[in-house]
C-alpha cells in the first residue's frame, strides 16, 4: 500500500489542466489551428508565394488556379499571400488588445474587489458607464477620434473590452478574498500588494485565461469590422477585414475575393472559441464533472 500522496501526479494545477485539455479532441484540434495561424504569421515572408503588395495587371480577378491557389484581386495581387500576411495583423491586434485589456481591467477588478466599499463603487460605476455603450460603437467612436492605425486600433478594442475583464476578475477576487488562506496571509504579516499578487491573482488566472481566449476571437472580429469600415488598418497593408471591405464591390462577379478572407476569419474565430470552451472545462473541472 502507498499513501495518497505517491499516487497523484506531481504536475500541480497547470499540469492537471493540461492533461484534461489533451483528452479533449476538439480543443486539441482548435489548438492546432491556432498554432498553424501563429506559424503563418511568424513565417509569413517565407510561406507566402508572392509579396503581398505585388501587383500584376495581367492577372487580375483570377479565380483559384495553379499559379494563384486562391486567385487574385482587382490589382492582380495574390489572395493567399495577402491572407497569410493578414494573419499577422489579426493575431497582433488580437493578442495586444487583449493583453492591454487584461492588465488594465484585471487591475481595476482586483483593486475594487479586494478593497470594496467606495473604491469598488467608483470603479464599477465607471465600468457600468463603459458597458452601457455598445462595445462596437465605442470602438468605432474611439477609432474615429484617434485616427486610423494599428496602435489606435488596439487601444480602441482594448478600451471596449476592459469592463468585461474588470467584472470577471472582481467576481473571482470576491470569492477568493473570503477564504481562510487570505486571512492566514494577513496573519503572518503579508502586505496588501503581496496578498493581491501572490495569493489572489494566481487563484483567479483560470477564469481570466478562459475569458481572454474567448475575448481574442471577439477582438479579431472587431479589428476586422473596424478595418472593414475603414477605421482600422489602411491599405495596402493586408488585413482580413479590409480585404473584405475592398472586395465588397466585386462580390457578385468575383465572389472568391470575399469568400477566402471570410473563411480565414471564420476558422480563426472558430478555433479560438472551441479552445476557449476546452480551456474552461480543463481549468474548472467542477463545471464538467
Amino acid at each position, binding site marked *: 500500500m502507498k499513501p*495518497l*500522496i505517491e499516487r497523484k501526479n506531481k504536475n500541480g*494545477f497547470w499540469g492537471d489542466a493540461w492533461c484534461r485539455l489533451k483528452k479533449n479532441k476538439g480543443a486539441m484540434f482548435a489548438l492546432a489551428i491556432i498554432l498553424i495561424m501563429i506559424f503563418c504569421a511568424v513565417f509569413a515572408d517565407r510561406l507566402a508565394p508572392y509579396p503581398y503588395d505585388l501587383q500584376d495587371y495581367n492577372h487580375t480577378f483570377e479565380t483559384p488556379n495553379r499559379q494563384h491557389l486562391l486567385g487574385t484581386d482587382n490589382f492582380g495581387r495574390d489572395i493567399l499571400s495577402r491572407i497569410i500576411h493578414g494573419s499577422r495583423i489579426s493575431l497582433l491586434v488580437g493578442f495586444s488588445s487583449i493583453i492591454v485589456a487584461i492588465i488594465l481591467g484585471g487591475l481595476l477588478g482586483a483593486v475594487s474587489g479586494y478593497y470594496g466599499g467606495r473604491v469598488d463603487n467608483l470603479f464599477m460605476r465607471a465600468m457600468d458607464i463603459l458597458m452601457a455603450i455598445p462595445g462596437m460603437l465605442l470602438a468605432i467612436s474611439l477609432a474615429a477620434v484617434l485616427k486610423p492605425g494599428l496602435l489606435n486600433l488596439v487601444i480602441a478594442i482594448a478600451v471596449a473590452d476592459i469592463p468585461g475583464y474588470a467584472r470577471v476578475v472582481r467576481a473571482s477576487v470576491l470569492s477568493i478574498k473570503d477564504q481562510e488562506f487570505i486571512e492566514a*496571509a494577513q*496573519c*503572518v*504579516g*503579508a502586505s496588501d500588494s503581496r496578498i493581491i499578487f501572490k495569493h489572489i491573482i*494566481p*487563484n483567479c488566472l483560470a477564469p481570466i485565461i478562459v475569458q481572454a481566449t474567448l475575448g481574442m476571437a471577439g477582438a479579431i472580429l472587431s479589428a476586422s469590422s473596424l478595418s472593414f469600415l475603414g477605421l482600422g488598418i489602411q491599405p495596402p497593408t493586408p488585413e482580413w477585414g479590409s480585404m473584405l471591405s475592398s472586395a465588397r464591390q466585386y462580390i457578385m462577379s468575383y465572389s472568391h475575393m470575399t469568400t477566402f478572407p471570410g473563411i480565414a476569419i471564420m476558422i480563426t474565430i472558430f478555433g479560438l472559441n472551441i479552445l476557449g470552451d476546452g480551456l474552461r472545462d480543463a481549468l474548472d473541472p467542477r463545471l464538467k464533472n
Partner: protein
Amino acid sequence: MSELLKIQNLKKYFKTPKGDLHAVDGVSFTVKKGETLGVVGESGCGKSTLGRCIVHLLDTTDGKIYFEDKNITNVSGNELKELRKDLQMIFQDPFSSINPRMTVKSIIIEPIQIHHMYEGNKEKQEKAVLEIMDTVGLARRLADSYPHELDGGRRQRIGIARALALNPKFIVCDEPVSALDVSIQAQILNLMQDLQEEKGLTYIFITHDLSVVKHISDNICVMYLGTLVEKCSSELLFKKQLHPYTQALLSAIPVAKINSKKNRIILKGEIVSPISPAPGCRFAPRCLYAKDECFILSPELKEFEPEHFVACHLY
C-alpha cells in the same frame, strides 16, 4: 505563572442594515503563560470573532487587549507586523486555509521571508522550513507537493507549520480539528500538546466540541451570543456546571458509551439574533429557570466560588 494575554471588556459590533450585530459583547479574561484556554460555544456565539480580534484580523469596537502587559488594542503598521511574530493563528478549514497554488515549502517559508528572518539568507530559511516540517511531522519529501495532493490531516499540519514559522509565543487555534476524522483528529491534538510542551506555547483553543476542549484545556470559557456565561478550570467545569446553558450544553454531548444516558436537558428554541439584542440575559428566552429579572438586567460575571465565574442571576 505570569499573565501573557489579558482581555478587558472586549466588544466587536458589525454594522448591518438591520442594526449593529453584537458578535462579541463585553468579554474579559486572562491567559497565563504556557496554559491553554478553551473557548466553547455554538455557531454564532462570537468565539471565532473573538479569536480574530485578538490576532488583529478584525478591529475591536471597544475594550482593551494587553499582551505581555502592553496595550496592543490599536497597534498598526510596523508595530503590528512585529506583534504578528508573537501572535499567530491556526485556522479551521484545512482546505480553504492554504493557498492551492503554492507548494508546501513556499507556504511555510512565506512568513519567514516577510519578516526577513535568518538575515534574509535563503539557505538558512529553507533549512528552517525543513526543520519545522520535521517538528510538525510532515515528511521532507512533501516539500514540493501541492496542497491538493495531501489529505486533511497533512494540510492541517501545514497550517500549524506556517503558524510556527515565526516562533510565536501565543497561538489562537480556531477549531483546528473539527474538519478532521477522529483518528486524524487525535494525531493533531497530540501534536499540538507536544508542541506546547516543547516550545512553551500558550493557546486559545476555540471549538464547539466539548470533549476535545476538555481534553486539551486548562481553563474553559463558555460563550453564549457574544457574552461569557461561565469560566473555570476544565476539571471543575465538567464536575459542576453552574450556568443553565452550560448544563444543557454538557448534557447534550453524545457520549460513545452504552448506558451513559444522563438526564438530557433539551433546550427549547434556537439562538436568537445577535442584531440589536434585547436587554437582559441573552440566554433568558431559552432558559428553564428564567425569572422576570433575567429579561431586564443582564447578569455580571461574578466569582461564585474561588476560580469559578458565572454570569447568571441564579447565583
